[in-house]
């Protein structure tokens, strides 16, 4: 059973069609990296899956059930699908610990104690437990992103979506965040990762999707896609990337 299945998804901003008839699915335990140049629709695809953008047409299924419905159902669905943003989006008014307890308490209605224990568990996993009393503004980008990952994990999601998680980071911080993500992949967490980190996509993903001008140009295992792509646009993109 696919965790997420997307059928004929299309998204228009005004007259501009950002996503054109997208079809793909991701099974439990898969790590799918989505690559492609800026404006190819990668982030929009991710945001449509989590309903932060409203699709224009098509269907999205979560564990074989079509997503949508009323706000309550949408919120419930979102609580099972984690999202990590390029700009972290940690709550600025809360400490690291409060950030990681907020979803547990306000959404999942866990007890204070359970929420605390889970927050510590996942903060330890990302190496941020010593910083529980810090506010986001007191952390570096890489630290913020690791806290954001821990916050998403406290919801114990079925699938975790990453929207260019390292694009806003200083180069020396990228490694810390990618290591955390690699650890999660090794544990079998289902993930969709929009990224510009080609080496990471090649080494960690079970499947890589190359998007070009709103369509999925290629969807294959990384060993094939990175070394011998079928699509000439993929080849072009990869060449440019290696040079750049």
């Amino acid at each position, binding site marked *: 059973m696919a965790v997420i299945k997307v059928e004929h998804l299309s998204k228009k901003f005004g007259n501009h069609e950002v996503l054109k008839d997208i079809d793909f699915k991701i099974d439990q335990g898969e790590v799918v990296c989505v690559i492609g140049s800026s404006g190819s629709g990668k982030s929009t695809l991710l945001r449509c899956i989590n309903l932060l953008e409203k699709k224009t047409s098509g269907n999205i299924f979560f564990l074989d059930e079509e997503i949508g419905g009323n706000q309550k159902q949408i919120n419930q669905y979102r609580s099972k699908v984690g999202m990590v943003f390029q700009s*972290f989006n940690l709550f600025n*008014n809360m400490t690291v610990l409060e950030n990681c307890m*907020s979803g547990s308490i306000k959404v999942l209605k866990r007890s204070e104690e359970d929420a605390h224990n889970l927050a510590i568990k996942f903060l330890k996993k990302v190496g941020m437990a*010593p910083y529980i*009393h810090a506010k986001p503004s007191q952390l570096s980008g890489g630290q913020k992103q690791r806290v954001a990952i821990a916050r998403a994990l406290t919801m114990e999601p079925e699938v975790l979506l990453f929207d260019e998680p390292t694009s806003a980071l200083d180069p020396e911080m990228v490694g810390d965040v990618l290591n955390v993500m690699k650890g999660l992949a090794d544990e079998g967490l289902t993930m969709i990762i929009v990224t510009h980190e080609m080496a990471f996509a090649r080494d960690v993903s079970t499947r890589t999707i190359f998007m070009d001008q709103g369509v999925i140009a290629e969807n294959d295992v990384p060993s094939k896609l990175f070394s011998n792509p079928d699509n000439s646009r993929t080849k072009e993109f990869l060449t440019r990337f290696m040079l750049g």
Partner: protein
Amino acid sequence: MEKNLFEWISFLLQEYGQYFWQGTIVTVVISVLGTFLGFAGGFLIGIVQSTPVHDDDSSMKKIFYGFAKKLASVYIHIFRGTPMMVQAMTIYYGLRQNGVNITPFMAAIAVIMLNTGAYMAETVRGGIMSIEKGQFEGGMALGMSHFTIMFSVVLPQALKNITPEMGNLFITNLKMTSVLNVIGIAELYFVTKTAANTYYRYFESFLITGVIYFILCAIASWVLNIVEKKLEGDKDYELAAEYISE
């Protein structure tokens, strides 16, 4: 022998000290009550105005918010677009002449509240709009409802941003209560006029009152400063030693 300035002031304070004191109390009480009620109302309206309504929301919700937002906008326009003195006269005498037995004190608080509410609603709306979209999206991605995000994430941050403006509103109110003497409430300006009229010492009387207003505003600024510092929070944080691994 003619008294000099200081002798007049000390004479007026002896004669009317108690009235000045009572006037000061009335001014403070109506400013504080009116302002805080206005803040509460302003928050409510600002929140309603910043609640997004989507195409696929229920028609009940659409109608409610459509109506509430229109109403709020009319209210804001009326109270920002007319002088407080005129509002006081209209509300106080409008109600009195139509058999509502409102006291000047109640009318004064109502006028300050309604005025503050109108300005505050816009301030709150601006405060909410100033919070980056990512804060909302961070909450949405966790499955939080709009109101959970509003109350636990956005408003605490917006409140911090608009504290200086709230301070402005309060200090303006402290001074603006003086116009309420037109409905016969014995606030500071009203008692000063009475004192001044008795001995025809306008300059001395109003000098006293000016100093009192100035001191009140200075105290208010000082308190607001403390509140702002409190909201700012600690600059430092402690590492949690128990989780530092060797």
